[in-house]
């Protein structure tokens, strides 16, 4: 027996015919189209449809309101992007404070616990009102007076409490052996966090963080209650002037355009994450 039987060749790749590939897709597409058409027909035949159309889906009104709503939406997106970065950092700081051990660092840990408990217990709307109206009203010299600024600060402070808890769950999910290995190599508590725990934690919780980002994208609209002229505020102004609600639909449309890709991205990242985990459990 000098050479055993040769291994069979790897299986030939299955060729998929065009028909096999596209027919299922076409069928699902067609069935969705049929359902939508049926619903549309039902709705448009309803007794009140002409009035609904005039009030909500008035194309002229949408076109007329669109530029200002879009400008407002620019504010939503900028606040969102800046707040996202601030939250990602501040929440991580809070989570790290919370994970610290040792008597010297206890005040930081206590601060983080109190902060997270307090802030999570207060509705975001209340925080926005407190900061956006309250702080400018103090008229403290040297502090910014803009309600946009303080409203954004409120969003960051509020969301960070949630994001900190997400980070924390990720840090706790990192196996103890990792800490032992880092300690045994001489890494300090800080270096262990920085090089071993946090990178793994962030990777673990990325899908959950992205979910928070999607929620934030919509919650920025809370700033409209303190007079920030975001998309919702601009749409409301238009509605108040014309007694037509189509501008709100225009704003809703813009929000959908922004959030749906984010949601898909979140799904994608979550799927990749799951595949990675499956691979590791041998």
């Amino acid at each position, binding site marked *: 027996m000098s050479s055993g039987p040769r291994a069979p060749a790897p299986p030939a790749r299955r060729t998929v015919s065009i028909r096999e590939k596209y027919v299922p897709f076409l069928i699902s597409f067609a069935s969705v189209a049929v359902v939508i058409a049926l619903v549309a027909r039902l709705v448009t035949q309803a007794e009140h449809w002409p009035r609904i159309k005039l009030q909500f889906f008035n194309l002229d009104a949408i076109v007329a309101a669109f530029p200002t709503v879009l400008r407002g939406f620019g504010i939503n997106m900028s606040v969102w992007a800046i707040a996202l970065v601030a939250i990602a950092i501040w929440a991580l700081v809070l989570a790290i404070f919370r994970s610290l051990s040792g008597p010297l660092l206890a005040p930081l840990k206590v601060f983080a616990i109190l902060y997270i408990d307090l802030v999570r217990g207060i509705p975001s709307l209340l925080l926005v009102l407190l900061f956006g109206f309250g702080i400018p009203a103090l008229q403290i010299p040297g502090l910014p007076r803009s309600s946009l600024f303080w409203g954004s600060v409120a969003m960051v402070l509020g969301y960070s409490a949630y994001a900190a808890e997400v980070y924390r769950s990720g840090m706790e999910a990192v*196996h103890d*052996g*990792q800490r*032992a*290995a*880092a*300690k*045994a*190599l*001489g*890494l*300090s508590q800080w*270096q262990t966090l920085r*090089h*071993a725990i946090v*990178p*793994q934690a962030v*990777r673990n919780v990325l899908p959950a963080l992205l979910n928070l980002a999607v929620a934030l994208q919509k919650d920025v609209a809370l700033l409209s209650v303190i007079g920030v002229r975001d998309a919702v505020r601009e749409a409301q102004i238009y509605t108040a002037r014309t007694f037509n609600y189509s501008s709100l639909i225009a704003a809703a449309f813009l929000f959908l355009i922004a959030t749906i890709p984010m949601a898909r991205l979140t799904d994608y990242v979550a799927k990749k994450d799951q595949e990675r985990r499956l*691979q*590791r459990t041998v």
Partner: protein
Amino acid sequence: MTRIRIDNLTKYYGDTLVLDAVDLAVGEHEVVCLIGASGSGKSTLLRCVNKLVPFDHGTIELDGVSIDDERFRNSNELYKRIGIVFQAYNLFPHLNVLQNITLAPRKVHGTPRQESEERAHELLTLFGMEQFAKSYPEQLSGGQQQRVAIVRALANNPDVLMLDEVTAALDPELIGGVLKIIRELKEQGMTMIIVTHEMGFARDVADRVCFLEGGRILEEGPPSQLFAHPENPRTRQFLQRIIEAGRL
């Protein structure tokens, strides 16, 4: 000169006595092998020596200084001088092999990147792992991961190296290579405490073998004596089982 001196080391996990008044001295250049059944406290002993777990009674000294001394308390000095390789490899999954190995030299010892990478490549080549320098742990077999873990500990240039069943996951033809490296390390003055189930390995590399049972060192001596003429009946029983399992 005595590098590590363990006196009356006692450790409980809850109410379970895991280490029962262990005395052990390891001299410079000495290689001590710990053998014993599963659960006898071998890993725990190693973990106590580099303060990964606290113990209840007794003292441990490194070069005459207690590991609870001020000098070791608020610094990573102890971890720089005593390296450990774990039974479970505990590589960092988000770092590739090279990054795993150079992390501590760069961050803890402040070795420049290039120097630490050269040393890492050198060690990887010795262990036949050079081609995996850029691989991630999850892409390696268990044996390959263990070799990386050994290299990672060696890259710290410790004075004392503790190995916890490091050959358990290695292919037979690679055990020889590891033995060779451990002998070379010994010639360079490395003091080692090695936990192993491979009696051939222990006999080959150890200056002294300690047999643990129930958290006590029941018998110790040079391998020639302990393996050929064990005095304690428990040692004899243990070795008998090992022989029956074909591992001696």
